[in-house]
């Protein structure tokens, strides 16, 4: 049996070598730098990326959401320093989205109209859990022409607890304690993993409780840190604080502008 698999391995290797030789021959005959691909016009791309980052943290009785307000063209050119990426859908639901800004706007409009209709039909505001499922389905509806966005839905659920739902562009949903999306996501998530998740902390060390004040401070610091090292994050922090039984508070804080 062993000798048999040995033979197939050899056969596979020779086969691969033959294919590689064939590829070498083709490439030598038509090198890439001579191909028409160099001069061919690019197919129109329906997406563009406007940069920026967003983040959400939930606690016992609160959820806070933040994003930067910069909007970028072609990765480097700043279009505006006052773009809004957070939408307050109702007193309990906040949507924050990064990615292609056209889709960000459309997603906002779709959810707003669905929530409006829900109010009309049921005479009460939708809860964040329902809205989370709704958003997931709306994203998956466009499975083969996706909204190019990293959405995060945050709010206060029916039990008065903070909730954060994180999505991928085609509607995979997950309820988390905290989440980030956008250009600085790879920088913010590890920071929050360390400070809120305490994933690196060994047993017997103090784990500070996640109060609203601490969450706000961590949120601000994660954006300050991201603005230091990520080029498309900056200008302003747009901070939205939802606390159970209190009205939603909106704040703007300065960030570096370079």
């Amino acid at each position, binding site marked *: 049996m062993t000798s048999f698999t040995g033979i197939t391995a050899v056969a596979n290797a020779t086969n691969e070598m033959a294919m590689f030789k064939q590829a070498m021959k083709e490439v030598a005959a038509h090198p890439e730098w001579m191909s028409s691909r160099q001069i061919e*016009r690019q*197919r*129109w791309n*329906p*997406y*563009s990326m*406007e940069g920026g980052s967003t983040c959400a943290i939930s606690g016992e009785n609160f959820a806070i959401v933040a994003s930067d307000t910069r*909007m970028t*063209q072609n990765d480097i*050119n*700043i*279009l*505006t320093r*006052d*773009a809004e990426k957070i939408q307050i859908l109702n007193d309990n639901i906040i949507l924050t989205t990064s990615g*292609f*800004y*056209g889709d960000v*706007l*459309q997603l906002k*409009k779709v959810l707003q109209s669905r929530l409006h209709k829900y109010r009309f039909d049921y005479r009460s505001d939708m809860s964040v859990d329902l809205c989370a499922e709704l958003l997931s389905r709306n994203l998956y509806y466009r499975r083969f*022409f996706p909204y190019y966005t990293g959405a995060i839905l945050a709010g206060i659920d029916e039990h008065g607890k903070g909730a954060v739902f994180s999505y991928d562009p085609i509607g995979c949903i997950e309820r988390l304690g905290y989440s980030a999306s956008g250009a600085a996501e790879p920088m913010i998530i590890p920071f929050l993993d360390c400070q809120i998740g305490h994933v690196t902390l060994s047993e017997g060390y103090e784990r500070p409780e996640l109060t609203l004040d601490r969450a706000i401070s961590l949120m601000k610091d994660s954006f300050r840190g991201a603005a230091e090292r990520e080029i498309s994050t900056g200008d302003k922090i747009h901070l939205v604080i939802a606390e159970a039984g209190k009205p939603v508070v909106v704040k703007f804080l300065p960030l570096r502008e370079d």
Partner: protein
Amino acid sequence: MNAHDEVQRTLNPTCTGTSVIALQYKTGVVVLTDRVVSYGKMARYKNVSRQYKVNDNVLIAFGGDHADFHWLQNVIERQVLLWKRFDQDIGPKALHGYLTSLLYAKRCKMNPVWNTLVVAGVEEEEKNNKETSTPFIGVITQKGCAYQVKHIATGLGAFLLNQAVEDEWRKKGEDLSREEAEAVLRKSLELTLYHDCVADNEFEIGRVDATEGVVLGKEEKIIGDWSIAETNCQYE
């Protein structure tokens, strides 16, 4: 998508306009566009306006494909008439929202409107009360990306002018007078002229003012300062 679609869709613009520059001042908005239609890099047609008066409160300027805008102009006109039937005048905010959805829907069909639109106007909070109206500038890109600004330059101007205009605007902010705003725009056009090969020195400045409404500009011309050319003719 098949080869036939390529012909029917604007996947490459043909006759185009370049930058639009707009700036908000104390009581309104000023908008500058040049008056040339380019066919590639050729200045194909001259004396063509890129500003369209929608009604007394709204002015639209565009960059990108002229044919696409002519189509859009027809759509806008019908929308305005629709509002008229309910005895309403469409405001800049509403029109901006409408066009955002329209451009986004078109891009979703992979049939984009090849324009960058600048919707300028004054938004009346109360009907026929000039006291409450506020200036408005909204931008929409061909992919349906929309945002509101106090100052904007599109096209190559987005690279060349955005920062200079922003710095100029920050000095005075909301207190900028109309004359000052227009001076900034004229200087801005001169500066694109030096670096944008499809920009033209014949231009117009339209404005939307809270009291005067839309005033379309007259054709103007600047020469600029080309004396630097004389220091610039050596080998290497």
